[in-house]
């Protein structure tokens, strides 16, 4: 059995997780939160175990990916594995349906336009330049479209 969560991120540090299928859904163009089957607690980032009722039963729930920038920084001094991307800008986003996410700004938003409070669309992405399957999400201008496929 392949470790699907290894797909997530340019560098994968911690691929063993109960929410591994998150990466499969992202590859299919879907951004997923977790929803507790017992009490309905929704979380992004997703988590297998409910912090409220302690249930381990969860389901994925698709998010629209609409959000608003909370903060951001341009990283000039990059860590190992990211030197070829530097400098890059990461932002923290409040998702419209709850939860927060951290990601790179994509090509549809020039660096000079980035501001706290601006609306963004979180878009599922595949690293085209990497041979193995590698997925992530980026922050784009609202209205940006992408392809969704059926679960592979």
């Amino acid at each position, binding site marked *: 059995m392949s470790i699907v969560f290894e797909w997530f991120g*340019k560098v994968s540090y*911690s691929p063993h997780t109960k929410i591994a299928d998150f990466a499969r859904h992202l590859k299919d163009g879907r951004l997923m939160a977790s929803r507790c089957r017992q009490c309905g607690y929704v979380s992004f980032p997703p988590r297998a175990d409910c912090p409220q009722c302690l249930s381990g039963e969860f389901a994925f729930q698709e998010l629209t990916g609409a959000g608003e920038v909370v*903060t*951001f920084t341009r*990283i*000039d001094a990059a860590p190992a594995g*990211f030197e070829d991307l530097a400098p890059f800008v*990461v932002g*923290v986003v409040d998702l419209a349906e709850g939860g927060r*996410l951290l990601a790179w700004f994509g090509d549809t938003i020039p660096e000079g336009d980035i501001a706290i409070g601006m609306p963004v669309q979180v878009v599922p992405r595949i690293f085209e330049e990497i041979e193995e399957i590698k997925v992530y999400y980026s922050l784009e201008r609202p209205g940006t479209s992408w392809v969704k496929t059926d679960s592979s």
Partner: protein
Amino acid sequence: MTRVGVVGIGHGVFGRRSDASVQELAFEAYREAVQDAKLDPAEIQASVIGAVPEYHKQRSVGGVVQEYLNLNPRPTWLTEVACASGSAAIRTAWMAIRSGMHEVVAVIGCQKMTELTTAEILALMGRVGDVQWESVFGTTFPGYYAMFAQRHRHEFGTTDEQLAQVAIKNHYYGARNEKALFRKEVTLEKALASDPVASPLRVYDCCANADGAACVILAAEPRAREITDKTVWLDGLGCASASMSVLRRPDLTGLPSAVDASRQAYAMAGIAPRDVKVADVHDCFTIAEIMAYEDLGFCGRGEGGAFVAERQSYIGGATPVNVDGGLKAKGHPIGATGVSMTYEIVKQLRGECGERQVPGADVGLTHNVGGIGQYCFVHVYRRD
């Protein structure tokens, strides 16, 4: 209730110490502390060591330190909460004494950070955040504080100049501290012209890694008064945690763990923030010191930038902060830092700081943060 106090203090020189191993660094601080307390080492009943293991080639570094200090077979254990490991050691030593289990305990904070290659440091640097959801985007330690700074600027108008004022103050005092790594003052122009690290933070907004050690010896009240007449009492302790992930923090303009820990410490010591005459706070980045002023209640939320720009954290101001140079100028050997802060505050309360002495310092505070506030320890010290 039995009071617990500091009866001896020692501090090595911080810096790139290619002349010494981690246990030799620890010995420098330990020797000074034992001599300061005029204590027979046989009276030390246990030790607690604060260090972050992943920087050392020696696995289980506490073992080699305990052996080199000639403290076998006495009990020892290591505390690890990232950059707050030294304060965690002090807290557990205090608990060991208050429980009645031990009467005299040595606390050693030590860290050798230059054993690692640049490549190893860069690899470690990429794993400071939540590795599942954040590190996969190449986040860094400065990057997180940069995002706090960006948010602080957005909500309160904090400027690059105000950030730089923290570096200017801490270098001013570091130049006057013989134990500091950087003993040179810095100008506003130089700070603002330094290379970008993670916007808006520049090189001069960041503290530097260093090797080093510090040691304090704690004792219970009746015994402490027999050892020395200059005991400084640890009367207030606070400790709190906050989420590992920045994504689970509703407010990104401060550290909730620091707010919680300080409220606990103030209540336990029966003081208010304005009673603190001198403080050592965790200025791993300039924005971290500005947030600390606010989290600790030295000024109101959003007023931290003005607080330093108006010289309120200099000697003579409302609350002198990091008049030993702070992490910024002293250097930041992460396991040693909390103990180093304690060393400075004890010296201040004893009145032994020379040109850096805060007049009338009778109540002092340390604020030691682990990571990006996942852990915070606040301690209140008082002299008789």
